[in-house]
């Protein structure tokens, strides 16, 4: 394996940094890379928004070539894949047999290794929690030269979820899928005219408790709950947007289980669609588009395919390039439910006061989980897309630092897959003793401290 220099960035493309990339194809090649003694960052699909999968001027191990399906049990919905296989691999393999992943991210591109490292969640986070609750076992190759197979009963299993690639390489994972009879979702969409109406809708349609238990018989019709918010709206309209609740369709429909039935084609036209968006990533057009969506988008029942409903970020290929040079950051915080409305309202005001427009806002509901490094809690998360340029970055940074303080004051947490603006003290504050446990485990599995990333360095996780 030879390391070749590449320009790498996070999904937000705020900054392109040089990395010397190695692409191992086997667990043995991963071990070889560690044996060389060089410090290295891990990279799957590079879908983290910030710097979790870059190592400026350093070596990067890109696991995306290790992407085979090793086995699939079509009777029990258990799939075994190499660590570089993606969420897409899971549903394309399982759906024709009537299985869908319990947890999918808003894009199907992340690798299982990355998904485990970040302990991802989906629109059904209130019910299904985080990925760690659905992984039956995985292999981890650590810098000390060992390959360990970890199961939920192993004491170290939980710490890998959320460790963001600092403990080892996931070379194999075994995941439990969930049964479906249809490839469609039943979705009901409502218009919310302000913050209060959003939270009323969540109140009305959230059918799972903080332990993930259903509160009603038909809870699964509301397995997925999500809101999008127009952050350009102010005053009485502040927080307006669209709320959706959805469930897997219960009407058997084997035609829709076919992978081809799941997505639009489009080919060359769709491949260049992001260029059409490019001139629109400015405050004026974005204000218009957000407003139009909040006020004019159709409401009521719809029956999109599971892929179209789940993978909205994949509707327009490479849409992130529409932000141009300078890119954007996503700021996401999780706040306990009693403070969520107040904190998120205030975040909107802070963005306005700083003169930083939020081009997209997404509100989700979560529940606690058992993972020491988790971001999840009995509360809500708000994700904000904030455009950046070399000139505006210091302003955006200061805004996000101020928002960090606000979130921490209210006992909130942060999701490393999105992060570009946590400071070391912020990370220590919300991770608490989980960080100490991570350091102790890393001292055993990576005694030379070979595994790093620009995120780990920025947060001074191991200093």
């Amino acid at each position, binding site marked *: 394996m030879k390391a*070749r*220099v590449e*320009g790498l960035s996070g999904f937000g493309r705020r900054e*392109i940094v*040089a990395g010397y990339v190695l692409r191992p194809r086997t667990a043995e090649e991963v071990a070889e890379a560690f044996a060389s003694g060089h410090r290295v960052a891990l990279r799957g699909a590079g879908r983290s928004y910030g710097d979790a999968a870059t190592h*400026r*001027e350093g070596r990067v191990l890109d696991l995306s070539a290790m992407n085979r399906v090793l086995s699939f049990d079509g009777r029990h919905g258990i799939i075994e894949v190499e660590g570089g296989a993606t969420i897409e691999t899971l549903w394309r393999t399982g759906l024709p047999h009537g299985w869908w992943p319990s947890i999918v991210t808003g894009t199907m591109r992340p690798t299982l290794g990355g998904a485990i490292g970040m302990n991802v969640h989906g629109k059904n986070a209130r019910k299904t929690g985080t990925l760690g609750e659905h992984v039956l076992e995985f292999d981890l190759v650590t810098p000390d030269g060992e390959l360990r197979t970890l199961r939920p009963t192993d004491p170290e299993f939980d710490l890998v979820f959320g460790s963001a690639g600092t403990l080892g390489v996931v070379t194999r994972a075994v995941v439990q899928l969930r049964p479906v009879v249809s490839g469609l979702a039943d979705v009901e969409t409502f218009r919310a005219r302000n913050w209060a109406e959003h939270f009323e809708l969540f109140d009305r349609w959230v059918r799972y408790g903080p332990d993930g238990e259903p509160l009603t018989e038909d809870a699964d019709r509301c397995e997925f709950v999500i809101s999008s918010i127009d952050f350009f709206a102010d005053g009485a309209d502040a927080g307006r947007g669209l709320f959706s609740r959805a469930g897997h369709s219960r009407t058997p429909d084997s035609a829709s289980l076919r992978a081809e039935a799941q997505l639009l084609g489009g080919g060359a036209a769709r491949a260049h669609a992001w260029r059409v968006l490019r001139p629109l990533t400015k405050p004026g057009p974005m204000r218009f588009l957000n407003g139009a969506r909040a006020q004019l988008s159709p409401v009521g029942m719809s029956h999109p395919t599971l892929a179209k409903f789940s993978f909205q970020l994949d509707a327009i290929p490479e849409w992130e390039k529409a932000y141009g040079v300078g890119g954007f950051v996503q700021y996401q915080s999780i706040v306990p439910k009693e403070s969520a409305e107040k904190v998120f309202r205030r975040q909107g005001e802070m963005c306005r006061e700083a003169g930083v427009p939020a081009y997209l806002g997404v509100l989700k509901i979560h529940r606690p989980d058992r993972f020491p490094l988790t971001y999840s809690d009995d509360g809500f998360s708000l994700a904000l897309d904030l455009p950046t340029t070399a000139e505006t970055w210091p302003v955006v940074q200061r805004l996000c630092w101020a928002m960090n303080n606000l979130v921490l004051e209210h006992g909130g947490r942060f999701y490393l897959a999105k992060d570009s603006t946590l400071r070391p003290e912020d990370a220590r504050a919300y991770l608490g003793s989980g960080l100490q446990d991570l350091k102790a485990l890393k001292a055993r599995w990576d005694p030379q401290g070979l595994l790093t990333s620009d995120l780990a360095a920025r947060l001074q996780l191991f200093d």
Partner: protein
Amino acid sequence: MPFTRAIIVGASSGIGREMVRQLAAKGTKVAALSRRTDRLDELAAEFPGLVFPYAHDVNDVDVVPELFARICKELDGLDLLVYNAGVMTTHKAPVNDWAGDLAMIETNASGAVRWCNEAAERFGAMGGGTLVGIGSVAGDRGRYLNPVYNASKAFLHTYLESLRNRHARQGVRVVTIKPGPMQTEMTTHLDFKKAMTAETGARIALAKMESGGEHYLSPIHWAIFKGIQFTPSFLFRRLKI
């Protein structure tokens, strides 16, 4: 746009040394490379925190990839590389000097390829950067006195032209600077008392490298050496130029 982080290969004297000083004076962080580190230490003392000396013999081709990566890491990035290392044998009459010829091939051609390949690959991957080779008017024609010096510079010109064509669409700027006669250590044997100084040459070169392509350092050099290039052979060989 000013350069922020630069590598100058061959920085102890001549145009290279002057470029280091002029870049550092504008706030550019400069990695200065040469065999003679005492000269570099003087530069570092003159511009603390901006000039970083590295001992390097360009004939030591095997260390280049790792050294290049290490420097980029220590500078935290790179937007300019200048290959300025060059040697010229000083015979006053034509002679068969294989050792001297090989030294010119290795320093002026092979060394250039080793360094410029690394920089071109990096700049191509990053979608930007400026790569500069210091060629010479000597490369414009095979003149009688020093065939291998002329050839080594012609090699550099064609090699850089290929890189220019290869990497243009990646936003990489490849520049060939063709100094004419200049007063530097390399040319002391040629007695160029009224020729351009290294300081002036560096100043003009830094301005010219804002745009890609081949550049002479003065319109007079351009005129004279284009003339030399296009003089028909049956005439040219009678002249002792």
